[in-house]
């Protein structure tokens, strides 16, 4: 057997930080060619703190049968990495897309990955995967040159077959080359990857590789795991966040035919071999709680934040001097924008299965963070890394909400006490309660425009959330962004393009308001105040596709709106047309055009799916979605009061992708959603003259704004 083991400096590695060692990964892989690779600079990606990153975090193997396997810690949540990563790798290796198998999100089989979030898979993981593919191809061509006795530069590859360009009958397959070999390489220096013009698959629309499993019901999610002796747990949801158990009596359930009650502090669960029976039995538990006095509710949360704001801290780099800006202003515009809590509401509620065997535990969980969960369990259980195995199978939607893995922590506690395999799926009401909601926030803006239509002042205050998306791409000489203290009684966390939905809604509403006060067309006003060439290109391309023309009055009555945004390196512009029923306050979105610059697009079909998803999901937070609560008590428990977008809402969606094949790839899962609040609020203004300052634009709020029209 041919051994070409690569020596890697291990001196700076602290093995205890790495859940599974390199040796464990490579063990049992069998023959073939293995390429190890590290995905990106962790300081740039937020993927782990310095010193925590292993020296490789994915690998690929070309087996002795010629099949390619890519092992990556990323999770398939519906956003399509199973397809786009396979596509990327197959292109660089010159193999058929269908000869690539993806092994994902399994802590025992895949190297560390910080999590699937923030549109990082395509821009950060993709390029390294390509480099690894190119490296593997180089190794294979080297082997083929020896085997065929042909110099390397005379060889070419097509569909996994290496051949002599001058005599195509002289050829050898990848499978023939890898047969009987065991070669391990670690990617050290960047090999030559393909460039524009050389791609076979990159840039082509590719159908989802997981579709066959998903249309037949074969796709396995965490709740589809079945183990011998497994029981189902249902957790007793407390009446409020912050509630503490005062008295507890489980005698009506515990020990009754087939039922078991488990308690660990505030965590209470009923176990039964049927989940429906366990759920039904929850109502028979006699538990009383102490509930903290509510400090605010969904209506007063904004005032509470603004009154208890603290001194705030300046975000990013302020510029100029606000007093000077105000002096230069011809028109000063002040407004406050409000946006409530929203739920992630993935169709699959958080689910997990825990199985202790001897000194090991295996956990299947619907999570965006399998390795984060593994680390948490290592610490909670005091177990060594190699004994804690986490798998995220197909996940039924995440949107940031499954970065939180509380359901898995709960089920592990329960299974440890119950001493048998346990599955826990949150009910829909649990999901609304335990969810890490997008935080409610208020944004206060004071801005000024000079006589030439230039924005010269921008004083921007954020109450209740962070600053993603608050950085300015408008050129404003005197500006400052301040972030004030947060107070939340519900759990909050990242929600698809965190902060940016609210920041973009506030900013773009305000830009339109200023344009109207200055008597300038909203597109013209933006073009005057954004210098960036890329942004200009996106604005013009989108306007062209939409057929935007300046109206001779504002509001024009056409129901046209626009909004810009910038997220994960992507300039994005949305245009929309709406119709408002002034009697009911109902808004019908007729048409949305999205223009964005995503750099090199790997899978245009995947981009279309993600963009349509952003626009559709974004209608929810713009029009209806809002979590109602009093103190720590969440009133919404299901889809009857919490209205998701439905079929009849869906507008005609059109897309423009700026051609930028020479630029790095960017993720498409977040940018388009950030503009939905702003574009629709601006379109409603253009349709009716009613300027709303709060989303969601419920019918009631629309009617109120119509009544208050100047």
């Amino acid at each position: 057997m041919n051994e070409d083991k690569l020596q890697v400096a291990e001196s700076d590695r602290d093995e205890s930080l790495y859940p599974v060692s390199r040796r464990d990964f490579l063990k049992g892989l069998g023959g073939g060619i293995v390429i190890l690779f590290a995905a990106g600079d962790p300081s740039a990606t937020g993927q782990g703190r310095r010193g925590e990153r292993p020296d490789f975090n994915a690998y690929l193997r070309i087996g002795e049968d010629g099949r390619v396997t890519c092992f990556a810690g990323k999770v398939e949540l519906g956003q399509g990495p199973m397809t786009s990563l396979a596509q990327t790798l197959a292109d660089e290796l010159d193999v058929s897309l269908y000869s690539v198998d993806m092994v994902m999100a399994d802590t025992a089989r895949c190297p560390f990955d910080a999590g699937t979030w923030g549109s990082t898979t395509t821009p950060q993981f993709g390029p390294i995967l390509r480099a690894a593919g190119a490296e593997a191809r180089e190794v294979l061509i080297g082997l083929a040159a020896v085997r065929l006795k042909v110099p390397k530069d005379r060889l070419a590859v097509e569909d996994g077959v290496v051949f002599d360009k001058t005599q195509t009958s002289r050829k050898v397959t990848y499978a023939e080359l890898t047969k009987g070999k065991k070669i391990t390489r670690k990617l050290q220096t960047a090999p030559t990857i393909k460039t524009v013009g050389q791609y076979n698959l990159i840039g082509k629309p590719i159908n989802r590789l997981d579709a066959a499993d998903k249309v037949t019901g074969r796709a396995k999610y965490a709740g589809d795991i079945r183990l011998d002796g497994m029981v189902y747990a249902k957790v007793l949801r407390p009446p409020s966040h912050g509630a503490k158990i005062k008295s507890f009596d489980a005698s009506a359930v515990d020990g009754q035919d087939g039922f078991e009650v488990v308690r660990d502090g505030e965590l209470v669960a009923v176990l039964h071999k049927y989940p429906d029976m366990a759920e039904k039995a929850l109502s028979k538990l006699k538990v009383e709680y102490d509930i903290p006095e509510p400090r605010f509710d969904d209506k007063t949360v904004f005032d509470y934040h603004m009154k208890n704001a603290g001194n705030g801290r300046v975000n990013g780099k302020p510029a100029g001097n606000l007093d000077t800006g105000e002096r230069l202003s011809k028109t000063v515009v002040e407004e406050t924008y409000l946006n409530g809590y929203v739920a992630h509401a993935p169709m699959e509620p958080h689910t997990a299965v825990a199985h202790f065997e001897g000194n090991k535990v295996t956990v299947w969980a619907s999570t965006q963070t399998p390795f984060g969960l593994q680390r948490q369990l290592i610490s909670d259980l005091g177990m060594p890394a190699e004994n804690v195995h986490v798998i995220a199978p197909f996940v039924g939607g995440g949107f940031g909400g499954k970065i939180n893995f509380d359901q898995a922590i709960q089920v592990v506690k329960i299974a440890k006490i119950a001493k048998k395999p346990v599955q826990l799926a949150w009910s829909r009401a649990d999901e609304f309660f335990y969810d890490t909601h997008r935080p409610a926030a208020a944004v206060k803006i004071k801005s000024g425009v000079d006589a030439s239509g230039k924005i010269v002042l921008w004083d921007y205050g954020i109450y209740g959330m962070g600053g993603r998306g608050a950085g300015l791409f408008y050129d404003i000489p005197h500006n400052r962004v301040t972030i004030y203290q947060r107070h939340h009684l519900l759990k909050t966390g990242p929600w698809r393009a965190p902060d940016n939905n609210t920041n973009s809604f506030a900013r773009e509403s305000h830009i339109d308001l200023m344009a109207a006060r200055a008597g300038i067309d909203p597109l013209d006003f933006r073009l005057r105040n954004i210098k960036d060439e890329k942004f200009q290109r996106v604005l013009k391309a989108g306007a062209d596709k939409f057929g935007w023309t300046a109206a001779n009055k504002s509001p024009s009555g056409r129901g046209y709106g626009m909004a810009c945004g910038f997220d994960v390196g992507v300039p994005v512009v949305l245009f929309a047309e709406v119709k408002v029923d002034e009697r009911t306050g109902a808004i019908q979105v007729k048409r949305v055009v999205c223009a964005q610059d995503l750099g090199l697009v790997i899978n245009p079909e995947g981009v279309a799916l993600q963009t349509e998803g952003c626009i559709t999901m974004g209608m929810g937070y713009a029009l209806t979605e809002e979590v109602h609560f009093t103190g720590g008590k969440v009133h919404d428990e299901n889809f009857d009061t919490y209205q998701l977008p439905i079929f009849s809402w869906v507008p005609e969606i059109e897309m423009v992708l700026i051609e930028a094949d020479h630029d790095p790839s960017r993720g498409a899962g977040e940018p388009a959603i950030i503009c939905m609040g702003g574009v629709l609020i601006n379109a409603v203004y253009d349709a009716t003259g009613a300027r709303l300052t709060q989303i969601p634009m419920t019918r009631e709020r629309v009617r109120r704004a119509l009544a208050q029209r100047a």
Partner: protein
Amino acid sequence: MNENISFTLNDKAVSVNTDGERPLLWVLRTDLGLTGTKYGCGKALCGACTVIMDGMAIRSCVIPVSSVKGKTILTIEGLAKNGKLHPIQEAFAKHDALQCGFCTPGMILNAYSLLLSNPEPSRQDIIDGMEYNLCRCGAHTRIIRAIEEAAQEMKGAR
């Protein structure tokens, strides 16, 4: 109270002995091991648990299993025949009418029922018929397109 409940499931006779008040969804998923039917809300509000009973789409999360006695139930596992996908499944895959896939079995079976009762639906008929099946990922326009194409395909096959 446990009782014997017999019905036809995906062309096979099955019998379960269980409490008849239990929702069909959980009997399918646990007792019968068919996990393609999904729980999304438990209150007939989302459609992820949709199955076909005697040709009609029903929400199995609120149907007591006792009420399917003697009936014919079709779940997503029974839709493809002899390894060949049903035209609706084909069309969903072809149009990428899904992302996370969790609502997909319910979407497909609801569409199946829709096309049984209305083989040549207009676009508006499809929207109306699918209205209360929820998809969080936003695959709606593709689902509509897939159903339109499946209807054409099935019409050709008739």
